[in-house]
């Protein structure tokens, strides 16, 4: 196993870069960070739409969220990879396809986290803000959202772990990322699948487990602050969204 790591660590880490495209673990992390960064604003809009005072906006965003949540991520990838190029008239590379599919998919999941974060805040918060003369937008932006997002930080972090795990599906459309790099090494060595896939699984585990543990640490920290500081508003219910495989 160490021999394989010694021979292939560059490929595992950065792929064929700088001779070819960036790949390996670096690409996995880059795709995940881009996916999270781009889906967060979409998720905020969708999440706010889900609790909008307008019925039509609530209906449209509910349909979007439930449709995405009912579709396998692989299907979303296929739509972006095979169907989208026909609409726009030219092919898209695997890397932006995967990031785009992640943004569509994760926006729906993050939106539900935003929504349950807002709904878990006591109604008194928005009522107090409105009676102080803030309009809906101001009350949301400066009173409700900051507290709701703070409360849902641990859940968002565990959703980021799911997002990292989902980047591995780029393998199916041959995106140069970590799983793809390992599959390349495996098909070159031919006789060492146990070692190669152990390296792959172990690396993902270390990365994701570290993040899961930090999410738990943040959760404990927030719980402690709530106990000690009366200014920190307690949510009505804990809303840990179940982690996804």
């Amino acid at each position, binding site marked *: 196993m160490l021999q394989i790591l010694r021979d292939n660590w560059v490929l595992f880490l950065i792929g064929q870069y700088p001779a070819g495209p960036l790949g390996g673990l670096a690409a996995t992390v880059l795709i995940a960070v881009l996916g999270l960064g781009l889906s967060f604003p979409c998720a905020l809009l969708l999440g706010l739409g889900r609790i909008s005072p307008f019925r039509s906006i609530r209906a449209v965003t509910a349909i979007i969220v*439930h449709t995405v949540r009912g579709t*396998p991520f692989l*299907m979303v990838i296929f739509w972006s990879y095979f169907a989208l190029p026909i609409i726009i008239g030219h092919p898209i590379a695997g890397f932006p396809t995967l990031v785009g599919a992640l943004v569509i998919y994760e926006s729906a999941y993050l939106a539900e986290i935003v929504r*349950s974060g807002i709904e878990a805040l006591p109604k008194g918060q928005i009522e107090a803000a409105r009676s102080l003369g803030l309009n809906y937008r101001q009350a949301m932006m400066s009173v409700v959202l900051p507290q709701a997002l703070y409360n849902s930080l641990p859940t968002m972090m565990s959703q980021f772990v799911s997002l990292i795990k989902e980047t*591995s599906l780029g393998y199916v459309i041959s995106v140069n990322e970590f799983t793809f790099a390992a599959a390349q090494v495996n098909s070159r060595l031919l006789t060492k*699948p146990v070692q190669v896939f152990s390296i*792959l*699984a172990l690396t993902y585990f270390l990365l994701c487990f570290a993040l899961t543990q930090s999410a738990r640490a943040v959760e404990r920290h927030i719980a402690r602050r709530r106990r000690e500081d009366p200014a920190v508003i307690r949510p009505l219910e804990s809303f840990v969204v*179940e982690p996804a*495989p």
Partner: protein
Amino acid sequence: MMGYSLDFTAVLAGEHLKWLLSGIQVTAELFAGAWALALLLAVVLIVLRNTGLRPAHWFVTTYVEVHQNVPLLVQVLFWYFAVPELLPAPAQIWLNEHNSEFILALLALSFCIAAYMSEALRSGLRAIPPTQYEASRALGFGYLSTMRYVILPQAARLSLPPLINYTLLLFKNTSIAMAIGVHELTYQSRQIENDTFRTFEVFAVATAIYLLSSFAIMALGALYERRAGLQAR
């Protein structure tokens, strides 16, 4: 999109319809088989955890963390490429003669989802006060009948909503089996696309099938939460 006219007959007739139907059948088999095995494994895990033995507890905790923090695709690839290497030769031959892709994908899916399901069961069990157990034992129930008649019925009420959620995730993730060549719905729709270039039609049909099934599972969950008087989240 200009000049592209939709034509579903290429997908929903003849040979291609047969591919599609067999894909649906394989997806259903994979889902049902993996679901039953995962639930069984989850119960085994939770019993192991509750034995009070330190190594058993440690094993279950590690099992759950490993399966939750490694991508499902990587687990499927590990089962497909690595696990057969670790088996004795007769088992390898048996696998190759018996549709090894399907069996290994089923095992990978159920071993992974079992970790999530056991956590769902655990959160349900944790909410039952230990006095329930003590009272039941004091009334003369053995360990198994205490579990069967007192603890599990109460825990199930709390565990069911997350269990239904994982059932949905399992169903959607059966599509990952296509990566190792299981001829399920996603794989077959890819094949039909390759054969007909009817990209929109075939993906629309496949997505609609996935969506309808997912909505059925979601509706089941909502129905249960309403009937059990649990607050919908």
